[in-house]
């Protein structure tokens, strides 16, 4: 046996994202955001997207390009405070925004990736986050039902990949990547370095290859991937 080669060109990997698709984007701030895949998505331009991501990035970066291009119908996020455009579009009613507690977003995505329908938690009880959610009693305690999230496509940034799709993430760039890489019908990973199978030690794989459909090798990294100097 050998393992399949899933190497794919940038344009083709992104080409099957249609109008109205639900797209998960990895990343927490800059680390882990698949900037190259997002730029290609902007170039191809499908509208009415539902974007699931921790945050909306900052001005001129990542998700902000999708917002600027008018491609976003809805954001499912935990925090958009660093993107004034997202805040303004939300307040103007140009986009819908669904906020999740950060660990709840992580778990909802993971539940989708784990083939579960949802989970029961006490997080948010007594606050407006629990409003409108189904109450469930379990083991004598009250909780709310949180539903699983899945996407048509997940766009993931990896530090290293092999051509079968085994992925490794660097430092805090891991964040939502292993979760989203399980939770979409089509998973596209851009990788800074792509090696042949065997180039990653099996114990050190963060996302196993069977979850990944396409591996896109990145050339030189664009400016967006660098250190952000806010001062």
């Amino acid at each position: 046996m050998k393992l399949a080669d899933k190497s794919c060109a940038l344009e083709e990997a992104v080409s099957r994202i249609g109008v109205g698709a639900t797209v998960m984007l990895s990343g927490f701030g800059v680390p882990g955001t698949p900037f190259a895949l997002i730029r290609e998505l902007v170039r191809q331009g499908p509208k009415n997207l539902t974007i699931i991501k921790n945050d909306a990035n900052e001005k001129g970066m990542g998700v902000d390009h999708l917002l600027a291009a008018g491609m976003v119908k809805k954001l499912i996020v935990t925090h958009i405070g660093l993107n004034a455009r997202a805040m303004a579009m939300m307040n103007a009613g140009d986009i819908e925004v669904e906020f999740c507690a950060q660990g709840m977003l992580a778990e909802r995505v993971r539940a989708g990736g784990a083939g579960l329908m949802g989970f029961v938690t006490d997080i948010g009880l007594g606050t407006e986050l629990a409003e409108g959610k189904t109450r469930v009693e379990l083991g004598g305690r009250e909780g709310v039902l949180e539903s699983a999230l899945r996407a048509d496509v997940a766009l993931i940034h990896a530090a290293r990949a092999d051509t079968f799709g085994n992925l490794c993430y660097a430092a805090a760039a891991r964040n939502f990547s292993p979760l989203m890489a399980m939770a979409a019908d089509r998973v596209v990973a851009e990788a800074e370095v792509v090696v042949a199978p065997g180039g990653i030690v099996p114990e050190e794989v963060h996302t196993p290859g069977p979850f990944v459909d396409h591996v896109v090798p990145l050339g030189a990294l664009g400016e967006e991937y660098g250190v952000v100097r806010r001062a």
Partner: protein
Amino acid sequence: MSDVRDRMVARAAREIARGMVVNLGIGLPTRVIDHLAADFPVCLHTENGLSGIGPTLPYEQADRNLIDAGGAYVSTIPGSAFFDSAVSFALVRSGRLDLTMLGAFEVAQNGDLANWKIPGKFSPGAGGGIELAQKARRVVVLTTHVDRKGNPKLLEQCSLPLTATACVNRVFTDMAVVDVAEGRFHLREIAEGLSVADVVKATGAGLIVPEGELPRF
């Protein structure tokens, strides 16, 4: 292994398409590995936490930490990955497992499968079989056509506790290849030396037999 079982396993191996992710259950299904070419692109998964299973190893060469779900000492290949049991079944339940091959006590004509429990006699627990049967994109069964007492295993209804409902797509036996579709068994292929009447007689439910000559294995 008898000649016909070997041919059955070889035939079942052709069920595996290029690029599939496949889980092979304990017993006959595991032997399918021997019929896969070294350069055939397939990713074998075992539910105890490995994708990219390599050849089984003799004890002298075994890694004490590297077994498959049946306890056999296996090896890795370039591109193998280890993961925990939650990730392993996430893969199964979320639709990333293209095919599983399982054993069976009984298969019903609606695709119900019973393969884990004989009340009062054999109740060791289901292990990972429940989720493999319920969630693999395609479920094929490898089994003898009849049990040791000669009773059919392909039935109108299962009598034993179910592993999963309406999950089996195809059955490979030592007598025939039988598809499960629209609530009925459909005879597709037949073992060398047998007649259709032999298969019909050994089957505990109606068997739809197509016109014309059937392929032999």
